């Protein structure tokens, strides 16, 4: 678990683990898995809220629950930068982790694959593989997206690659 900051780690350990190992094509088993996904997401969300650390909104955009969309945000210098968030559940899930996409930032940073998929740290994949059936979407968000946002947004803001929406509007207005 090295490679992550202590806050992330403590949070991660508090997210309920999943048990069912089944992908989107496994039918009923997938439903069971999906329910567990929801439970863990609820717990994670509540945790974040109670710690005054709420940073995303997501929801399944198809009934199978294989595509998720939502928003995520990061507060930097008392300004809130908000981005669209979307990802698909791969068919080999849960062996393969979902690829999180921030389409608004596509082409603005090097730490990103084409199409806005974020580059995760070297530590993520082995950890995920090790905890194959137990980690779910909540874990992927906590381990993948949250550290990425904390690392990349300040750099992007400071370099002027992204602008706060108020600034953007004001600049456009002016």
């Amino acid at each position, binding site marked *: 678990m090295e490679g992550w900051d202590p806050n992330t780690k403590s949070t991660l350990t508090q997210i309920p683990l999943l048990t069912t190992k089944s992908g989107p094509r496994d039918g009923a088993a997938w439903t069971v898995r999906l*329910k567990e996904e929801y439970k863990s997401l*609820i717990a994670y969300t509540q945790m974040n*809220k*109670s710690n*005054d650390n*709420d940073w995303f909104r*997501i929801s*399944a955009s198809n*009934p199978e*629950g294989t595509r998720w969309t939502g928003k995520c945000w990061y507060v930097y210098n008392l300004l809130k930068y908000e981005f669209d968030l979307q990802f698909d559940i791969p068919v080999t899930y849960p062996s393969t982790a979902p690829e999180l996409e921030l389409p608004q930032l596509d082409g603005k940073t090097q730490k990103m694959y084409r199409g806005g998929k974020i580059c995760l740290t070297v530590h993520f994949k082995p950890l995920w593989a090790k905890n194959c059936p137990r980690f779910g979407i909540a874990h992927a968000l906590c381990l993948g997206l949250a550290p990425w946002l904390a690392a990349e947004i300040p750099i992007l803001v400071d370099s002027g690659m992204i602008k706060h929406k108020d600034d953007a509007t004001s600049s456009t207005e002016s």
Partner: protein
Amino acid sequence: MDDELLELQRQFEFAQQAKSSIRLSDRNVVELVQKLQQLQVIDFELLHTASGKEYITLDQLRNEMVTEVKRLGRISVIDLADVTGVDLYYVEKLAQSIITDHGELMLTEGEIVTESYWDSIAEEINERLQECSQIALTELAVQLNVGLDLIASVLEPRLGTIVKGRLEGGQLYTPAYVARVSAMVRGAARGITVPTNLTVLWSSLQNLLQEMDGASGVAVDGSFFQSLFNGLVKGGEISGSVRAGVHWTPAVFAVAQKESVDSFFSQNSFISYDVLQKLGIPQPVQFLQVTNPRYPEGKPLVTTFVHPSMIEMLDAATEDALERGSWSDSLSLLPSSFTPQDASKMLFLCQSVQLALKSNKAHIFGDFYVLSSSFMKDICDCTVKELETLAVSKSLGTVKPGDLPIANEVKAGYDSSRLSVSSEMASDSGSNKHADKGPKKKKGKATGNALANQSESGADNQEHTSTKSKKSQRKGKDTSSQTSDSKQGSRKESLKMKEDNLSSPSEEWIMEKITALVPDFEEQGIDDPETILRPLANKLRPTIINTWMEKRKALFKDNAERMKQLLDNLQKKLDESFLNMQLYEKALELFEDDQSTSVVLHRHLLRTVAAPMVDMLLHDLDEQNKLKNGVEVQESPNSESISFSPGDRAAISKSFPGALSNKALAVVEALEGKRVETFMSSFRAVTEESGLPLKKLDKKLERTLLHSYRKELTSQVSAETDPVSLLPKVVSLLYVQVYHKALQAPGRAISVAISQLTDKLDETACKIIADYQAAAEDSCASNRIREILESQMPALKSLVSGASRS
């Protein structure tokens, strides 16, 4: 899509819609609180914790502290500060107010303790106590980490209620344990039959307890035993007496002791302190007289306590001995455990002895020998007699063999010579006579008085009528000595100096005499003559000397006359012969140059003239000496006829006192020598020493003497018929005529004498003498020559007579 999934979707949606809680940073909160305080919204004191993360009000702190104390029962203020996380200063301050508010709390040594805590502790202690039967308070104090006083004060009110036991000398005991130890103490105390130091007993009991309890046994304090023991004594469970808190004397021992003393004393009429000490009575006299006054009639002595019957027995025996005019050894009459001091003390308690002492009928020597006066008188008389015989034998100058053992004789001789000196002194100053006895008599008298004072009454003289005559004698003597005493006072000192030279039979000598007279004493005093013989001799000596002196004084009176006569005679005779001697000496000067003749002449003079003179002097001096000593001297037949051998002379000279002896010896020596001069000087010294001044030859006297000598010689020559003896006389006469010197020449020196004459006489005279002398030298050989000599005699005679006439 089942319902559950929808429900979960909905819940997730709801969870995401829910308002997230808002968190303020610490810094914001602190600022907020400060703002509130500034705004007086918070108008009470607010404390913050040591971590700086919390605010707490005083009331809350107080509540927390009280709960904490109540929960734990006992907590230190420091711990309390840690628990509440508030600064110690506030906690301490609050602790004080809490203690005052809550009566059941107490603050000791920085700790707050509740009563209930102590109750529970007491219960614990009680449990342990019931298990171990005894616990040391110190142990408890260490265990609870509180002061010894505190735990004692806490336990005190709980003893008997919560803690069922007894606190004794810093130890807690259960009643059962106390009862057991008490039983041990009782058993030990009852078992003891001899006086014991209780601490020893306690230590042995302690050992016993430790053995019983094994290694776990806690040392029981001695004071615990002591208090139990005291209780037992008070309760009458054990009987005896305790002295100084630790010396226990059991009643049974005291009783046995008393009975033992009683039985011994009643059986033997005495008991020695040693026995009492063995019985464990440290102060026997006190015990017998004060502590235990059952023997009121008993008398304490130095080492023994006696019943009066014992004293009566001794009294009777001694009285008997005194009446018989004998002596008694009190110590031999008493049991062997009696010391001389005891015997002496008992004698002081004997009435008859005291009376006898007071009336001078008895004397005590060496503490316990009682001698009657008559007995002593006998000894005295005997000794004086002995002394006389000795003095006589000495003065006669010969020792009678078999009279006495040699050693005695020598000593006696020495003593008597010393005596003679004293007698001289005595005659010099008559009143000094008794001087040397003064102090001794006085002492004796003083003690006598003391003795007399001690005896109660004295009027039984009639009992001793038999010894009355002797007593009266003694009394006479005593009074005389007493009168002399009164004179002595001032002279004592000077006399004491002389005392060394003073004469008296030595104590040793008297002691030996006494031993010879009373053989019993030897048996008694052989091991230690000091006990009786010496004091007795000491006591008797003055009396003996006194008696003897008186005897001698009487003798002196007789002798004095004779002495004077003797001296006068001696003086006369000496004068005469000494003048002659001087005369003859002068003639020797003629032959000074002729060495051999001179020697011969000197010798001749010494032999013929000096020797009789010396003998006469020595004899007379000796006689005078004896007379002085009061020795009876037979009237000597004729002093002229005396002649001594050189050995006799030396012996007599030695017998003279002091310096005279030396000088007389010198004379005797000179007599054997060759020089008349030395003899003359030493002879003069002797005569001067003995108070006989000799006349010196002066011219006038010399002439007279020479004249008479000449006359005598002339008459002798004319009357002489023997031709051989005529020659020396003629020669002498010729010397007188020629040289006016009186020559005494032996036959050998005649020829030399004649040759000396030749140059003074005429031819014919010389011829006659020479011829005669030559003939005389052969005269011994034949009668014929004698005849020739006889024929020549008239010629020779005429030669002299003629010369004398011319």
